[in-house]
């Protein structure tokens, strides 16, 4: 359960931190809370892991990362943990997840590779497949052609009370 004052803070900063010399004092003014309390509470929420990270969220296309491939494999369940851990160690891999297999979609291991262009991503994938011995498993590469929507999740009152 998230405390009411924490909840109030989280709602106020979810769309962004003020860009001014004393941002936490500014948030304090908006929430009617002293700056020291804002800093204490946010520090604690970060330690608890509820705030994963404070910082910038980039648009990868704007930074020149034009190719993004979702690569999926069907790997035996008893190997997935080891393979997932190995894949995550490559610097060009941004995400690696296990997800349930579906009818007509037998894949259970997913990773995302962001690269400057398609050729680079394919070369990186080849390196990954070699190093992790993935070549014997069924694999598909899904490049994204277009991004229609990209936004952060928005939480209202109800979201936080269920925590």
């Amino acid at each position, binding site marked *: 359960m998230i405390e009411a004052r924490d909840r109030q803070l989280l709602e106020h900063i979810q769309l962004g931190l003020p860009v001014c010399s004393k941002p936490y004092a500014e948030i304090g003014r908006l929430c009617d809370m002293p700056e020291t309390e804002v800093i204490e509470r946010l520090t604690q929420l970060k330690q608890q892991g509820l705030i994963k990270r404070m910082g*910038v*969220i980039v648009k990868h296309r704007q930074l020149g990362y034009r190719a993004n491939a979702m690569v999926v494999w069907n790997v035996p369940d008893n190997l997935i943990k080891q393979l997932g851990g190995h894949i995550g160690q490559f610097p060009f891999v941004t995400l690696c997840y296990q997800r349930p297999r*579906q009818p007509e979609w037998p894949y259970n291991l997913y990773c995302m590779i962001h690269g400057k262009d398609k050729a680079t991503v394919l070369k990186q994938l080849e390196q990954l497949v070699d190093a992790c011995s993935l070549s014997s498993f069924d694999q*598909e590469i899904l490049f994204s052609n277009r991004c229609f929507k990209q936004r952060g999740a928005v939480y209202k009152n109800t979201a936080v009370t269920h925590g």
Partner: protein
Amino acid sequence: MDDIDKKIINALQDGFPICDAPYRQVAMQLGLLEQELINRLKALLDNGTLTRFGPLYNAEQMGGALTLAAVKAPEQRFDEITDIINAFPEVAHNYARSHELNMWFVIATETPEQIQQTIDAIEQQTGLTVYNMPKNQEYFVNLKLEA
């Protein structure tokens, strides 16, 4: 975007201090003046290079839920399906991908129950089967990209 902007983006992807003068602290680390950092960050947000500057929450700890879903949108209905799916406020990201399953989107809801409700509503409005692929296990997440 010049080298200083890149330096700022890379530094702020690693995190932002929680203290009384955080911009001054970051500026000092980067060898910039506080006001210069503030001005450049504002510009990067205004011109859309950065989506957002602030916290990234752990959805599950917030009580919410996330899933990855996909549909097979027929070519001739592709734009219509895109519009229907993007109109859902629960849809956080949506990508066209090169596959028979050609539209992949993330659903983020305030409660776990709303995931299924959203999927049902999308199926009803599109007439398509929604493949639901929630995360079983997370092995690695690093959204940092070198600018």
